[in-house]
């Protein structure tokens, strides 16, 4: 009988443990040691009256799926888009981007400009007029002091992951509803601080104790108090966030937000989340669907939802290592001085031939589907600043590519092995490295075939993304210890000047500046620097600005980079949902969540 008793005891114990674990589903987050639970919003000033006005909060629960789960809710602590999106339901910036890439007011009355006096004539100051009568979700008023505090918070703490403050001298509260930001030099595009969901305003009262040493592990990072349509009711790290309507939200009188609660569930893969929206109809929205195009099309055909794409400045491009092989004082320390590649340095013809050989339409159809459009520019945004000089790249022309290599450059295949050589006999063989990712490997496979047709051999390599994007690693993109790299870069918001400024000579990463700098291609052009300086002195209203941006773009793609695909963000929306508009590739896709409602 000993055996049965022992087994029975074990079974009972296991049951008890399982039952206790399950029953405490909500309260286990309070059972940890030290400090306030992240799930309780137990401020004494929390309002308890039900919302007033129309149908705000009457829509039930909105179920959003992100296969990359939210890990915390403070964009300033260093994060990915997944966390910024989760935070954007609660905390808001002063201005944000809409789906067309235009700035719209969020917590201000209007977008400042030189005309309305919001931007000073000398371009060093910008003044924001805040919306009156806005309160935080705990009932306290939202004032200019909170805006000033956000600047103090980020500049006063090590590890604040925001580069928006580098050239800000001061942020001053002129009065309770007016804030003035002063820059150290004229800044034609001043909409970097407080613009977009990555730069939200934080409440002084809550985050004051988080400045400095306490920055990294502050409890408030999981439960920020905000002015947005929702507030956090439960936060499970890397799993689910539950939100409920913010009773102090300024849109309640207009019946916004429609949904009373939101569940932002993470986990699984992109395919799983797409299935839950498009096949089973269990959820309303799925984000960042990096799914094979044919599978996604199949799911969409089931008729329960739609798939939509939002584009911005993200461009997947081939980056050609511009290290000068003949320069003994090579600042890039390419391969510790040994054997830099002799091919790409200022070689516009070679870059053109390589670009012509690529069939971008086929690449987009095979690897990206709806999520990618062929592009020939690093600044791909539709509008007057879009360059058209490079559109020849959209049509594959193997003959012309071969002709350029054969006749213009004199790279012939003298030994008949199918690979061309430089005049000195070096074969056109090089390494092409990117991150480990099915889409990228598919792209590499295509490029390998295209380039084989013009007598070039590219050795396709890949590194795990954690290593490839590691700033300290020898295998990372900044050190560029290889011949060609391929990855996606994008601008912050719609700031072309800041983005293209990364290609200045001063921005070349080298060991002397600790591999800091965005000019990873090592593009060293004096004319580029001169044109950029000109751009930085041209105001936004000046039409010459567009022309300068086009020139800068053309200089980069001449031989430093070969743009391939303009990548968009793919999301799925259930047919039950309406009011979300077009997918916003410029800011958080949940920027207008207060407008979302059930259809019918």
């Amino acid at each position, binding site marked *: 009988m000993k055996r049965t008793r022992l087994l029975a005891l074990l079974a009972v114990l*296991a049951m008890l443990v399982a039952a206790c674990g399950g029953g405490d589903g909500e309260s286990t987050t309070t059972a940890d040691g030290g400090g306030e639970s992240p799930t309780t919003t137990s401020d004494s000033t929390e309002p308890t009256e039900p919302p007033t006005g129309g149908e705000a909060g009457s829509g039930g629960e909105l179920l959003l799926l992100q296969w990359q789960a939210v890990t915390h809710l403070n964009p300033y602590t*260093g994060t990915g888009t997944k966390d910024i999106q989760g935070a954007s339901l609660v905390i808001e910036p002063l201005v944000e981007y809409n789906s067309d890439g235009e700035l719209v007011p969020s917590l201000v009355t209007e977008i400042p400009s030189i005309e309305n006096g919001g931007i000073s004539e000398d371009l060093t100051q910008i003044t924001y007029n805040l919306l009156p009568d806005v309160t935080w979700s705990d009932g306290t008023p939202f004032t200019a002091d909170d805006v000033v505090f956000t600047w103090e918070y980020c500049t006063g703490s090590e*590890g604040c*992951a925001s580069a928006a403050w580098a050239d800000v001298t001061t942020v001053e509260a002129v009065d309770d509803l007016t804030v003035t930001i002063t820059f150290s030099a004229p800044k034609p595009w001043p909409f970097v601080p407080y613009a977009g969901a990555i730069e939200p305003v934080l409440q002084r009262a809550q985050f004051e104790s988080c400045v400095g040493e306490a920055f990294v592990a502050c409890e408030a990072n999981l439960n920020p108090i905000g002015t947005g349509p929702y507030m956090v009711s439960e936060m499970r790290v890397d799993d689910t966030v539950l939100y409920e309507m913010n009773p102090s939200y300024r849109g309640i009188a207009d019946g916004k937000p429609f949904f009373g609660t939101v569940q932002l569930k993470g986990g699984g893969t992109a395919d799983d989340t797409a299935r839950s929206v498009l096949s089973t109809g269990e959820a309303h929205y799925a984000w960042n669907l990096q799914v094979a195009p044919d599978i996604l099309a199949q799911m969409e055909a089931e008729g329960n939802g739609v798939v939509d794409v939002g584009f911005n400045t993200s461009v997947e491009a081939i980056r050609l290592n511009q290290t000068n092989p003949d320069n003994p004082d090579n600042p890039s320390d390419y391969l510790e001085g040994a054997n830099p590649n002799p091919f790409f340095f200022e070689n516009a013809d070679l870059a053109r031939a390589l670009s012509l050989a690529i069939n971008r339409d086929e690449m987009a159809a095979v690897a990206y589907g709806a999520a990618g459009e062929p592009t020939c520019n690093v600044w791909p945004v539709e509008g007057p600043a879009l360059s058209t000089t490079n559109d020849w790249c959209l049509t594959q022309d193997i003959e012309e590519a071969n002709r350029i290599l054969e006749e213009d450059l004199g790279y012939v295949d003298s030994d008949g092995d199918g690979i061309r050589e430089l005049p000195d006999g070096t074969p056109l063989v090089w390494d092409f490295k990117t991150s480990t990712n099915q889409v990228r490997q598919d792209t590499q496979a295509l490029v390998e075939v295209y380039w084989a047709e013009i007598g070039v051999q590219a050795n396709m390599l890949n590194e795990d993304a954690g290593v490839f994007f590691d700033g300290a690693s020898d*295998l990372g993109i900044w050190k560029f210890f290889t011949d060609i790299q391929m990855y996606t870069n994008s601008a912050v918001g719609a700031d072309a000047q800041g983005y293209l400024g990364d290609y200045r000579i001063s921005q070349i990463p080298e060991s002397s500046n600790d591999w*800091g700098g965005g000019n990873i291609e090592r593009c060293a052009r004096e004319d580029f620097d001169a044109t950029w300086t000109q751009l930085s002195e041209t105001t936004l209203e000046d039409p010459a600005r567009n022309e300068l941006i086009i020139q800068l773009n053309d200089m980069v793609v001449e031989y430093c980079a070969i743009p391939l695909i303009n990548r968009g963000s793919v999301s799925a929306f259930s047919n039950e949902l309406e009011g979300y508009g077009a997918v916003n590739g410029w800011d958080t896709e949940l920027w207008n969540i207060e407008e979302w409602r059930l259809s019918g």
Partner: protein
Amino acid sequence: MGRYIIRRTLFAIPTLIVISLIIFAILDLAPGDPTSQLPLNVPTEVRERIREALGLGDPFLVSWLKWLKLMFITEPINAFNAIFGTCIGDCTDPDRIISWSSRTPAFNIIIERIPQTLWVLGIAFIIGILIAIPVGVISAYKQYSAFDNVGTFVTMVGFSLPVFFTGLLSIIIFSVWLGWFPSFYSTTHVVDWTSWESIWFQIKQMIMPVAVLSLFNAAALSRFTRASMLDNLNQDYVRTARSKGLSENTVVTTHVMRNSMIPVVTLIALQVPGIFAGAIITEQIFRINGLGQLLIASLQSADIPMVQTLTFLFAFLIVVFNLVADVTYGVLDPRIRYD
């Protein structure tokens, strides 16, 4: 027996310290950067500052010793304070092991996840045992009968088909085509034991992952039980028991099973740590977001403290349950005497 247990426990402590050093060393040597998931337009100086703020700059031994102190001294004290409401040491702002990706104490996250891991994986484990043992016993007793052959076939299939296949298949059939069960697990659902709807919701979302996992668990265990039973059914004492006039039922359940269960119980005890390490693939497919998924996510985002804490916890559980298995073996089998 008591001395044996004490000796083993004392020996476990240096074992665990060495395990932690090895884990630490491997992770320290591994490439990977917690800032690699940031958007590319975050400049290098900012990334460097973030790395410093996380403590990446410390030399290896310093960070290992810091972690050891947190793990062996500070965290248990915190847990004690939390459970018993006492205030030993610094209870207002204690030093915790901080996860890099979420910037919160690692143990908070682990405790948040234990419910779903235990609910789904614990119950799958128990159901696996409840299926495996009877199947194994009957298969052995009626060796080569129809039951045995079918049982062998089903367990072979259950063991050979990978969980990601059976899991995905069950989602396609039961969620997409039939629409009976949800395709993902909602960890925030609080079971209200007075409401049948609430209980039914929990059962509905658990059925598929539990079924998939228990099939897998049961397969191995039933084969083992069967083999163990077969060993014992041919022993002389069984013939003696039968000639004494005992009923077949008594012979099998009281005598043969009891002896066959000895190795099986020890095997079960050794498999318990596996519940916590989680069925990683199942958790991913059904989005159960338990400890297994946490480990994978931390590895991918190079969240070293979280990985260290989790792997150390699993090692700790394995050491503990090894001891439990040995002690159980000694308790069940009077022929085994320690010390």
